[in-house]
């Protein structure tokens, strides 16, 4: 029999708030974190919409200069989220000095330091002008290399790059590490930068909403009049822990990760696939030994793009059409948190589970023919939420689905 993986801590830094309580209130109230950035428009974006994420203030009392200069924006978010997660799990520096803990985060870019390095080299033609921190900021594994150093984590240590499913896969892989008995504790999560360099190439594809006159109505997953996603970011972290280990430590168990499913579309690079989604969700359910009717709530991936939401609605209808499971996309409030999304949406789902509600899919005014077939809620629903399926799908056809359960 394999080990059980439970969640004993969570942390969040997002456009809905910088702590669990604030984010929980935002989710319950259906509050949007979206705004408009004139700087992006001036820089040359077609859309200036984005999730407004506060920049953390990390003082020298918190971290020394050597560490801080190696941390780009999204690593700073991840640090703030990880602090919260460890604090909630009642894990302090002394504990981490005595016990092994792993670290797996989802992240798929570090654009700003790469571009700043390029700018310096073009101007100076001298690598000595790059300074000490740039190498640690610009590598794709910046989040895990920094967090493992800061918190003295000596277990599994790598970054998962899987586009917009990165954060979800990170939790899935941490869950597998614990299930296999290879780790007792793994810090998992996802982090996404929000600087103007980070998603310029996405904007080039025309995938961002153009509804700039109504920023808070721009992200409208599953709505008939959706016209694209709104980029966002921040970081989310969870402490995954082996069940007996958590019990013996006296930790409060927030939920159990009971299923992880994945698939690759093996098709077009930017086109989603309903069958890819179905395979990932089906595998997660099979792994969890649950039937569709056992799921209380589906946190959809739906990003507010015309095609992606349609394919996901088709997939959900195929599997859950008979049981009319409640569905919402919290991206209606957060925008698309990209590499972070799969992890943040587990944190959002945990909050709903703890506080007995399903957050609304705001801006859903008129479903289209596909979304009309699934049980979407545009309003907050007060209900017991014991089991959640959380979907994440990314460019290149990487799909991930997680099932968490209250115990």
């Amino acid at each position, binding site marked *: 029999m394999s080990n059980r993986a439970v969640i004993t801590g969570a942390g969040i830094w997002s456009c809905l708030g910088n702590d669990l309580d604030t984010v929980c209130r935002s989710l319950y109230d259906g509050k949007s974190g979206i705004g408009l950035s004139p700087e992006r428009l001036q820089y040359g974006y077609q859309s200036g919409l984005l999730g407004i994420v506060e920049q953390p203030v990390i003082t*020298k009392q918190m971290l*020394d*200069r*050597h560490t801080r*200069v190696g941390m780009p924006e999204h690593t700073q978010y991840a640090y703030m989220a990880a602090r919260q997660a460890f604090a909630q799990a009642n894990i302090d520096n002394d504990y981490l000095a005595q016990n092994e803990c792993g670290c797996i985060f989802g992240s798929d870019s570090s654009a700003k330091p790469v571009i700043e390095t390029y700018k310096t080299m073009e101007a100076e033609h*001298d690598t*000595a*002008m*790059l*300074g*000490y*921190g740039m190498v640690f900021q610009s590598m794709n594994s910046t989040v895990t290399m920094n967090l493992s150093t800061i918190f003295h984590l000596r277990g599994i240590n790598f970054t998962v790059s899987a586009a917009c499913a990165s954060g979800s896969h990170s939790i899935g892989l941490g869950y597998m590490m614990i299930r296999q008995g290879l780790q007792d504790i793994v810090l998992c999560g996802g982090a996404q930068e929000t600087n103007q360099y980070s998603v310029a190439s996405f904007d080039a594809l025309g995938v961002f909403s153009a509804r700039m006159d109504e920023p808070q109505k721009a992200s409208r997953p599953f709505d008939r009049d959706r016209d694209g996603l709104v980029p966002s970011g921040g970081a989310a972290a969870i402490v995954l822990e082996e069940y007996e280990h958590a019990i013996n430590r006296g930790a409060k168990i927030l939920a159990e990760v009971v299923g992880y499913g994945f698939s690759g579309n093996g098709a077009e690079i930017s086109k989603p696939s309903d069958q890819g989604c179905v395979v990932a969700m089906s595998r997660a359910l099979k792994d969890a030994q649950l039937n569709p009717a056992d799921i209380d709530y589906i946190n959809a991936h739906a990003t507010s793009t015309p095609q992606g939401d349609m394919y996901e609605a088709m997939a959900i209808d195929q599997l859950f059409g008979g049981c009319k499971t409640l569905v919402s996309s919290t991206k209606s409030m957060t925008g698309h948190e990209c590499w972070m999304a799969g992890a943040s949406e587990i944190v959002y789902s945990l909050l709903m589970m703890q506080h007995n509600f399903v957050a609304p899919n705001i801006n859903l005014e008129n479903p289209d023919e596909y979304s009309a077939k699934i049980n979407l809620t545009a309003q907050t629903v007060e209900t017991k939420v014991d089991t959640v399926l959380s979907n994440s799908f990314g460019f290149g056809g990487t799909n991930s689905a997680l099932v968490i359960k209250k115990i």
Partner: protein
Amino acid sequence: MTRTEIEQIVKEFLIEELEIEPEKITMEGRMKEDIGIDSLDMVDVAVIVDKKFGFKIQPDEMKNTVTLNDFCNYIEQKIAK
């Protein structure tokens, strides 16, 4: 630029940018052992010196630089050329 100005600029960036405690900074202090400027800091010091004094530190020219006074002497000589 006078010697006093050089020393002032160096002290300022050690405090402001390298976050070294002001009480640790003396002209007689050894840069590494007493003041705590390690090899990683020196990578950033090279960038700061280039921006503030307009020349590039050559590592082989720094071999005999032990104290902060030596370092200010080095800067003084370089900018005098």
